[in-house]
């Protein structure tokens, strides 16, 4: 089931992107980059813990 408020934001954001795609991408790119950078930092840390690599393998299988 789709959350109404979330969809309202999706629609608001999509209309903004339609008006000015480069401006929207300029906002989302650092956000997505930071997610990826944080995820990699975390995985590297997890890999160094006991059974860390096995846990990562299990996570990746999902």
């Amino acid at each position, binding site marked *: 089931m789709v959350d109404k408020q979330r969809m309202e934001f999706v629609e608001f*954001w*999509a209309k903004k*992107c339609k008006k000015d795609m480069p401006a929207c*991408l300029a906002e989302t790119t650092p956000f997505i980059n930071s997610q990826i950078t944080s995820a990699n930092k975390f995985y590297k840390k997890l890999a160094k813990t006991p059974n860390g690599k096995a846990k990562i393998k299990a996570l990746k299988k999902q």
Partner: protein
Amino acid sequence: MIADRQVADKSILNSFVKDFILVLDKQKIRYILVSGFVAISHGRSRGTEDIDLIIEKISEKRFDELNSALIKAGFECLQGKNALNLFNDYLTDNSSIRYVREGAFVPEMELKFAKDPLDENQLKNRVKLPLTGLPFWFSSIETNIAFKEELLKSEKDMEDARHLRLIYSEKLDENEINKLKRLIRTHRLGKSN
């Protein structure tokens, strides 16, 4: 535009895809990028850990060459190093394999073969999407919307579909979307229309 290029160049996802696609292009392998990355390339405000890629069905020999070229380009496959195993245990079984940059964990390129007439049709009718500022081949917007609304249907997918519908509101071919949904019902959901 210079501003577009600067944004595109700074994107970790785009850089990852660019380096991967470069290898496919050199190997002359037809591909399409589908699903989440399509929406994200149109400004959708969410992240992803993986990028979905469909390639034409190739021979074991060509896959071996592709795999070697990807390794040389600094990628590694999470399912293993042996191209024969990857080909026989995964790809020809219609399962995907995942590549990451060596030493990294995300993002992942989830690669699979075209597995049915629906996928082959997507490859045949692939498009470039100038609004993204990216030089890659994608499945059509109508195809992405049809899959998200008819097959995938998660909250995230419905939001992606809505985002794309609004971006392309005056250009969408609704007849095409409905036709694709019928094909999805037939080929993926086993329903007669």
